[in-house]
């Protein structure tokens, strides 16, 4: 009895050995077959990869369809930024519109998470598909307002914050813009 179990277990051990070794040999063959398969490498600087329109990379500040700055210096983007790479200073023009006196993004800190874009109430701050903004000098990674501001409306062509916001500025009272409703009179009992 003892002898037979022993022989069975040794036989099993031997088949295991053989199977293990055969598996190694087969691995060699499989890898050798890859001599004839094409490389998956994208040779980057020559071959540019496709980046979708909503790809998150270099941040810009856009303008509304009238060519005015969209940014109202509300600071929500700076508050939302998890790495604190956005800094700005509020100013007010003669019409009562807020705008950033200066606007600074430190791209050496930026993690292109897109939270600033989500936080922005005016679609001013947007992420673009351009990811090639390396610099040899670290200081050049700090972008000022001049570097960030573009001349177009970016991803949202028709949006103008002051035409939908119900906010009074000089020459336009609450509810006077085309796509604004009249403000609700909270002191009236009428619905």
């Amino acid at each position, binding site marked *: 009895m003892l002898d037979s179990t022993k022989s069975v277990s040794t036989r099993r051990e031997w088949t295991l050995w053989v199977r293990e070794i055969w598996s190694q040999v087969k691995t060699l063959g499989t890898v050798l077959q*890859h001599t004839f398969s094409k*490389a998956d*490498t994208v*040779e980057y600087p020559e071959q540019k990869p496709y980046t979708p329109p909503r790809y998150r990379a270099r941040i810009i500040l856009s303008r509304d369809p009238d060519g005015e700055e969209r940014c109202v210096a509300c600071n929500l983007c700076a508050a939302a930024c998890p790495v604190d790479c956005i800094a700005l200073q509020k100013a007010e023009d003669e019409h009562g519109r807020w705008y950033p006196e200066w606007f600074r993004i430190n791209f050496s800190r930026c993690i292109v998470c897109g939270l600033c874009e989500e936080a922005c109430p005016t679609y001013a701050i947007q992420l673009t598909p351009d990811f090639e903004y390396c610099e040899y000098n670290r200081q050049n990674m700090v972008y000022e307002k001049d570097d960030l501001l573009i001349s177009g409306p970016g991803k949202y062509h028709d949006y103008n914050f002051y035409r939908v916001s119900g906010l009074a500025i000089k020459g336009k009272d609450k509810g006077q813009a085309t796509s604004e409703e009249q403000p609700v009179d909270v002191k009236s009992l009428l619905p």
Partner: protein
Amino acid sequence: MNSAFSLQSIIGTVLGISVLLVVLLSSAAVLIWLERRLLGIWQDRLGPNRVGPLGIGQVVADMIKIFTKEDWVPPFADRSVFILAPSIVVIAMLMAFVVIPFSPTLGISDLNIGLLFFLAMSSLAAYSVMLAGYSSNNKYSLIGGLRAAAQTVSYEVFMGLALMGVVILADSFNLRHIVQAQEQQGWFIIPQFCGFVVFLIAGIAESHRLPFDLPEAEHEIVAGFHTEYSGMKFGLFFIGEYLGVILISSMITTLFFGGWLGPWLPPLAWFILKTFVFICFFILLRAAIPRPRYDQLMLFGWKFMLPLALINLVATGAVVLVQEG
């Protein structure tokens, strides 16, 4: 024998040695590029292809980098041994090339114990790794050194035993005679297939190449015995490893694949071609096979390869005895 010491023959030998040195060291450097390209091909990548045509300039770039690096000795290391260790492997590997017959006329020395000299030199190379592991004064280095010692001792045993079949068939320890014997008896790969497999596996273990690179197993013990090495001292270990690959490949060629023998092409071309195929095979092993666990390595060596080598030796001896009648 006296005529061998004439001025002419001395100059000839010195010239041969210098040519061999240059060829070996430069091909060891080119192997770094070749390995990276081949690994790339087998892993569906491209490998280094930027510097120069096909990326061959990578060799020069790597050399410049490694020569201009800071040559640093850690303050806690055993300084003299630390500096000595990397040179041992290169010297031992280069010494072993002395006995290899590259063609009917080429070859530095015709030692009549050539095979034993090769075995001795390749085991001396183990000192390099052990001393490096010991002198670095670092836990990981020491573990790497210990593993190297145990691995070399285990695999050395049947590395020699596997070659005894060849010696029995060729009736000589002289590598040139072994090749000449294969001219009459056919390549020894056919009668000595077991010996070939055992020697190949032992050779991989000897040169600490993957899958038997446990002494430097970077996933477990940082970089093993060369954790503390940098600059040209690390470069020497690197060169030593590639010299080991070339050495084992050319030994396989000499012992089992008829050395320089072959039709049409000149003998030296045959030797280089066969050696190149085995170098590529070494790289294929690295691309394909994962590293075994340490106890599996020992188990495989003592329980499988050693009996196989012994059976091969006994069987070969019996067959030769019967044939001689």
